[in-house]
């Protein structure tokens, strides 16, 4: 693509802005900062479009976002929060107070377990699980091998299961 062409740029933005923002949120857990950084990355690309190699632009935005975030976001404990769709209203079994409470508890345990993961494992896992990104695409965006992505996916699920078991004890 030609990053100086407004048409090309808009298409690229529509396709990638959401994913880039999510990547930042999954990694650093700060929503407001992630919004600003993702937007700024695209503004910078647009302003300096003539310097940018259109073929490498996808991994470039991830690198820029990561560097910017490390500059701005302090190393603190990551707190991730997700909203959730309500359970199936037509199925009586899923409407009992016991079920709803249990589901709520499980959600906060899983959020806590995710927050305690290494950022580079959590980001890969959530990009795949929440945004449906393929391993190959994650690997390309973050400059990793597919094998590395697969190892992280495996390890995260092992770690999450162990954490949640730990909370239950």
């Amino acid at each position: 693509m030609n990053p100086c062409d407004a048409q090309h740029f808009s298409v690229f933005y529509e396709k990638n802005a959401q994913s880039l923002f999510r990547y930042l949120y999954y990694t650093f857990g700060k929503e407001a900062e992630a919004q600003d950084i993702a937007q700024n990355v695209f503004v910078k690309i647009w302003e300096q479009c003539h310097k940018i190699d259109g073929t490498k632009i996808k991994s470039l935005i991830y690198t820029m976002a990561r560097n910017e975030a490390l500059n701005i976001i302090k190393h603190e404990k990551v707190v991730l929060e997700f909203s959730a769709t309500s359970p199936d209203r037509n199925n009586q079994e899923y409407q009992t107070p016991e079920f709803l409470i249990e589901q709520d508890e499980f959600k906060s345990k899983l959020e806590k377990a995710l927050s305690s993961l290494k950022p580079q494992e959590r980001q890969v896992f959530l990009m795949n699980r929440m945004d449906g990104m393929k391993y190959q695409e994650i690997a390309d965006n973050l400059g990793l091998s597919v094998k590395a992505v697969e190892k992280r996916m495996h390890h995260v699920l092992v770690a999450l299961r162990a954490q949640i078991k730990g909370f239950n004890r």
Partner: protein
Amino acid sequence: MEEQETYLSDWLDGSINDQALKALVGEAEFREYQSITTELNRWIAPEFKGDLTFLDQPKKKKIPVRALWVRWSVAASVLLAIGLFVFQGFSKQVIATTGEELVYVLPDNSTARLSPGSELSFSSWGFAWKRTISLSGQAFFKVAKGATFTVESDQGFTQVLGTEFTVHSRGNYYQVRCFEGSVEVKIDQNKYVLAPYQWVDNLNQAVERFEGAENSPLSYWSVPLSVVLADIEAVYGIEIDRAVVQPSWIFTGKLDHDNLNQALNQALWPFNLEYKFVSEHKILLQPTQ
């Protein structure tokens, strides 16, 4: 051995089905994995709220470098060169050792904040006229108003009036960032005049803007990773085997100066590198698995 296995990632992307995973891990463990993925399916991540209105605004223009400064500075350099021969005073040395940060007040009330593992020297009599300092390592200068103030290193030299700037000279690398006033930098045969928030180094040899970075030790704008690692060595008194580091890897950001592990993580993570201690003071870098 478990780290080498990826059957869970195969299951997550559908390469193996539920039955196959059950056969591998058993019914109970399978259910636990499934409860995690089912719960995640119900979740909704926050939405990106940016927009494209910036496409309609005119782009920022680069700040032009003023020719007058250059001419003035050339004149100043000539005077300074003469001054250098006239005043060869007794040398005073200031050293910030490994792990120590040091603020030194020069005879004219200018201050130099030395990062750990840095060294400066100047002529103790005649400094009032000459104001020339030799530096190796990194220092942030706040210069009192007055005659030209010069910082020399092996790779280049920097001249200023009243201003604030950082000189970073480590090994063969040389970078100057200007925070206030104007700074003239000479690298090889070329001269660069920096306005506030501009920087230049001896790799790119072009004046560019930087943003928001602090003028504190271990804060970097577009510096080769190998230079950053050399600073970490000086600050923490360790040795880093950095055979895997590519010359093209450039770091921007700020590192902790009182927590080695944190600093290493901050520096290495963007490049997907990990570190391990091979002995108490020696660290080996390797790609993250």
